[in-house]
């Protein structure tokens, strides 16, 4: 059967649009503000002229590759190419500053497809079971999942807890801007129509990370002639492979986290990447090195976000509910071809399409390696230019990226405002990641808390008594205090806790 499925996708009318789509994915992912969703929407009319399998291959190829390619500008320029690459600006960019950009990107190149593979294998093996679990999540459980996400801020900003708290507070405040979901009343919009649906996340994120780089470089003019990225040693895939093997447990764990979070409707690859980063730091023996350009800090998020893309397919195929907007578009296209999500998905023509999606998903992960390799090569040439060229380029990327999203100059202004905020925060050593996380999670926390309270008529009890809620709460407590608990267990057993 596997041979039949492979034969159905290894044909020129499938392969040609597939590879074209993957190349487009490189461009879309590496260009801040151009989202995979946008590319997928534009591709759909083209797929009407292709065979069903060719169309699906083209869209899936674009979507999978762009999530990886988003790490490229995040690592080189500190401007995330997609929302899911927000975490890559932490350790990935620090590696670049230490002249190890090719190492960071080689990790991305190997771990992205590994994460994607784990995600697709889980999708193939357990879509129905996982979707059934996801359905049991109601407002009460989602609140705690979001709180779990926010709890990673505590881990990320360890050592600067007060400043981390300030960043979270700013982020949560920013997330309250916009129409109140329950009453429909506009909050903090000052009559401006552009703020009705809240502060745009992508312009805010691009500005926060990108603009401070430019401002800092301008303030030390003597560095303008120097290349911004100095390559001390070129790392090839062969150099990093042994280290990838060493971190196999981390990759597997991050991919599982990514798949699970991706499979929850409403949470996506971006949240998955942050949580995986937090968990990796939590479990690390050297958590203080996170954020300074550590391997684990690159590996965890890049494995998780690709797994999250596969995870989004779980509710889509099992329930007919897309986990994110890309899946929504592909699902819409696939249903025209005869896909029937739900219990009947493996029957007849629908089964052929589902197996095709599985085959394409897995093959895309493998093909990602050569295509990603070419992409990294191409981009590394551009980024070895001197600062006097790179800095205007970052600025251009930031402006284009925030404008292209919505063709709206307001977003460009917003991007600059957040750029100044980011610059000011970094000068005062206030960490940026908690701010970004709070902007993502704020609405999720507010919505689920308020909807839950509406449902219970104001009682908080179900938030603490429902079985899954309790499991998530216990997970949060363990996550935050594992170090102490571990010490306690060791002491009880009479083992020396000091590690060699």
């Amino acid at each position, binding site marked *: 059967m596997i041979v039949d499925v492979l034969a159905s996708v290894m044909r020129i009318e499938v392969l040609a649009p597939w590879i074209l789509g993957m190349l487009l994915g490189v461009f879309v992912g590496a260009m801040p503000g151009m989202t995979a*969703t*946008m590319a*997928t*929407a*534009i591709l*759909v*009319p083209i797929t009407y002229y292709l065979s069903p399998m060719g169309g699906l291959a083209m869209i899936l190829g674009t979507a999978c590759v762009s999530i990886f390619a988003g790490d490229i500008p995040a690592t080189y320029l500190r401007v995330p190419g997609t929302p899911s690459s927000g975490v890559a600006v932490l350790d990935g960019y620090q590696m670049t500053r230490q002249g190890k950009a090719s190492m960071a990107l080689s990790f991305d190149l190997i771990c992205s497809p590994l994460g994607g593979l784990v995600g697709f294998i889980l999708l193939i093996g357990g879509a129905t079971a996982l979707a059934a679990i996801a*359905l*049991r*999540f*109601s*407002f009460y459980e989602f609140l705690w999942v979001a709180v779990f996400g926010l709890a990673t801020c505590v881990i990320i900003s360890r050592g600067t807890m007060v400043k981390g708290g300030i960043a979270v507070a700013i982020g949560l405040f920013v997330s309250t801007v916009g*129409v109140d*979901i*329950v*009453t*429909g*009343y*506009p909050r903090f919009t000052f009559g401006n*129509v*552009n*703020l*009705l*649906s809240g502060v*745009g996340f992508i312009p805010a994120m691009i500005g926060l990370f990108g603009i401070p780089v430019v401002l800092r470089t301008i303030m030390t003019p003597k560095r303008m002639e120097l290349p911004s990225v100095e390559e001390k040693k070129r790392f090839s895939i062969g150099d990093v492979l042994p280290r990838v093997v060493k971190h196999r447990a981390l990759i597997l764990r991050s991919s599982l986290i990514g798949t699970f979070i991706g499979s929850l*409707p*409403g949470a996506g690859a971006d949240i998955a990447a942050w949580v995986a980063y937090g968990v990796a730091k939590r479990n690390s023996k050297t958590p203080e090195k996170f954020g300074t350009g550590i391997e684990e800090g690159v590996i965890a998020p890049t494995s998780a976000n690709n797994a999250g893309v596969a995870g989004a397919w779980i*509710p889509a195929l099992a*329930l*007919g*509910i*897309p986990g994110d*907007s*890309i899946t*929504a*578009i592909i699902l*819409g296209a696939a*249903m*025209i071809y005869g896909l*029937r*999500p*739900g*219990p*009947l998905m493996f029957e007849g023509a629908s089964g052929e399409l589902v197996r095709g999606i599985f085959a394409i998903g897995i093959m895309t992960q493998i093909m990602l390696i050569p295509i990603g390799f070419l992409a990294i090569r191409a981009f590394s040439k551009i980024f070895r230019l001197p600062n006097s060229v790179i800095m205007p380029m970052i600025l251009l990327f930031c402006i284009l990226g925030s404008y292209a999203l*919505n*063709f*709206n100059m307001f977003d460009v202004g917003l991007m600059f405002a957040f750029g100044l905020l980011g610059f000011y925060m970094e000068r005062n050593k206030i960490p940026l990641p908690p701010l970004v996380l709070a902007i993502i999670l704020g609405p999720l926390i507010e919505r689920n808390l308020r*909807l839950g309270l*509406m*449902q219970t008529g104001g009682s908080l009890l179900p938030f603490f008594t429902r079985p899954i809620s309790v499991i998530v709460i216990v997970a949060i407590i363990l996550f935050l205090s594992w170090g102490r608990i571990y010490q306690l267990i060791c002491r009880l057993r009479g083992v020396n806790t000091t590690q060699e």
Partner: protein
Amino acid sequence: MKRKPTTLLMFVLSTLLVASIAVPGCAPDTADYPTKAITLVCPWGAGGGTDRVARFLADQLSNELGQPVAVINQTGGNGAVGHNAGALADPDGYTLCISTWELSILRHMGWSDIAHDNVRGVAMVNLDPAGLMVHPSDAAAHGWENAVDWIDYVKQNPGLEVSGTGTGGVWHVALLGMLAEAGVSADQVEWLPSTGAAEGITWLLGQHIDAVTCSIVEAGPQLEAGTLVALGTMSEERLAAFPDIPTMREVGLDWQLGAWRGITVPAGTPDEVVEVLHDAIHRIVMSDTWINWMEDQGFGQFYLNSADFDTFMAQDYAAGGALLEAGGLI
């Protein structure tokens, strides 16, 4: 040899430059409209239903008019950003907007000053009727077979939870209208605002809520799989794709509502321009290409000419305001 591509590029670029200077030079003459590229503003995100209709229509429209028609997505504010951009553009026929039902409530909800009187309708092209969906196990347990059964149950057991979209959104008003028609006060059910129909459907599948109002098409996959059942459709007649779902009128409720989409231009656009656009769109919606595509995609086909569309928008605006007020939202 190596220089050649650059020379060619320079040639192309300079030609384009000259051409771009030349275009504004021609005085806009409505007689031979259109003479340049047209922009179609879509107030909703790339890949959504409105975007898909907009992109297909733009493609067909550029064939009809002989000028490129580019779709740009200007999203935000429950459609307010895009509708503002469409209504406040120059009234020369070069900026169109694919308006949606939300145009009828933006001003009522205080999200924007824009309403139907800021635009002129060119043609309505689509209408997706709402439906009332419940979980099959609830339907079996309480013997719900149509909307009236459900409403009778609500009268006995107030406080059922319903979702389908955000507060004041189209499917919320669909529920409010149905309840008003049945003489049930809006506070007998609780509306849990969701980010869209998909989220509401997820909650219903997990039995976290009691019913969903959204378009029948949006719940299509679940209805076909039997994981949800529809108690009624808020359309004039039964739907061809779902002939088993009774209409509201069949069970004695005179209530219809659907999410509509149509092309509008800013108020003050000359009659000749509206006429050219309308005739082109009329030819498109009558074509087999359009009919087949809409059918494949599951979109409801519904056409109104410019004058009827204007009247329809005015009525929809008045009706929406009354229902929002009765529902205690404004």
